[in-house]
């Protein structure tokens, strides 16, 4: 049987879509932050693979065709951004200040917590790019001498947390404006958070998309600087 799974191309794709479908159903039923379709789908995939004792690499063999679409889909984020450009032009100072302070607070809070937890240099630089898109974050981690696979894990967890709790966090901190919400979500939790921002509205989605680009580039510059602190 496991030989069959090893040669199947559609198993990984189907399992991913099926799990996400269940996630959507549960979300519709309970409307809780914890019932996040992405989180549920990931848990189901991991459970199925563990129970059926299927190697993760076997699953990835089919699932890579889904990941294949990630770069084209990310590029498409330019479309909502273009559609909301007038709004951005009117508020660009506030928007850029917001992204800049978000990146700074990310690096600074990682530094402070790393000091408190007495992390070594390699673990510290592993965490520095945690709020930016995976492809950039991996490069930053590698260049600074971090553990790249851990960086990828932390980036994904950050995204899922942002995706799950964006609405709650915005409510608690009284972030009501659509532009502010979008910038907050994109700056803190990159493309996975942006998927949530897209659900909240076009303005949120567009601003979140912009934040991925700007905060990604700012973090490349800032992480290099912060790496010297510890």
């Amino acid at each position, binding site marked *: 049987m496991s030989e069959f799974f090893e040669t199947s191309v559609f198993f990984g794709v189907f399992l991913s879509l099926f799990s996400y479908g269940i996630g959507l159903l549960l979300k519709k039923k309970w409307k809780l932050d914890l019932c996040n379709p992405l989180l549920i789908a990931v848990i189901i995939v991991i459970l199925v693979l563990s129970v059926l004792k299927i190697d993760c690499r076997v699953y990835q063999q089919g*699932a890579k065709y889904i990941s294949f679409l990630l770069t084209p889909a990310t590029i498409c984020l330019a479309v909502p951004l273009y559609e909301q450009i007038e709004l951005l032009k009117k508020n660009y100072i506030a928007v850029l200040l917001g992204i800049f302070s978000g990146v700074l607070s990310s690096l600074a809070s990682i530094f402070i917590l790393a000091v408190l937890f007495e992390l070594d240099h390699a673990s510290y630089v592993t965490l520095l790019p945690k709020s930016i898109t995976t492809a950039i974050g991996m490069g930053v981690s590698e260049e600074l001498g971090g553990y790249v696979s851990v960086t990828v894990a932390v980036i994904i967890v950050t995204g899922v947390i942002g995706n799950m709790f964006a609405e709650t966090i915005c409510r608690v901190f009284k972030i009501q404006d659509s532009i502010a919400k979008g910038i907050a979500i994109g700056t803190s939790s990159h493309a996975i958070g942006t998927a949530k921002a897209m659900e909240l509205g076009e303005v949120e989605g567009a601003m979140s998309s912009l934040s991925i680009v700007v905060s990604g580039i700012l973090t490349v510059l800032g992480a290099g600087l912060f790496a010297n602190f510890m």
Partner: protein
Amino acid sequence: MKFLRQFGVILLISFIGELLYALLPFPIPASIYGIIILFLCLEFRIISLDSVKETSDFLIEIMPVMFIPAAAGLMDSWQNMKPALIPYAVITVVTTCVVMAVSGRVVQFGMRRKDRHE
């Protein structure tokens, strides 16, 4: 044919992004170059919104699904995180909330200040 043409345009831009990543010495991935290229093409009317709109809406809508394989891959990198799991977990949760709160509040503050000036 419309979807095929639109997907073709998007893939062409993805390819140009890859090309730039290979040629330029910056740690910026193909997708980021791609966003910038597509945005500039739309802004300067090199391509029309109609030539990407529906396919782009579709790809963005199904985007969450594309993160499932990478996230399921956490299964394998789990071992590497074990030694410092608690610090990693605390730092990840806390900083994500801090960044969201700070950036959102700063944007909101800046916009309200500007509105008052006008």
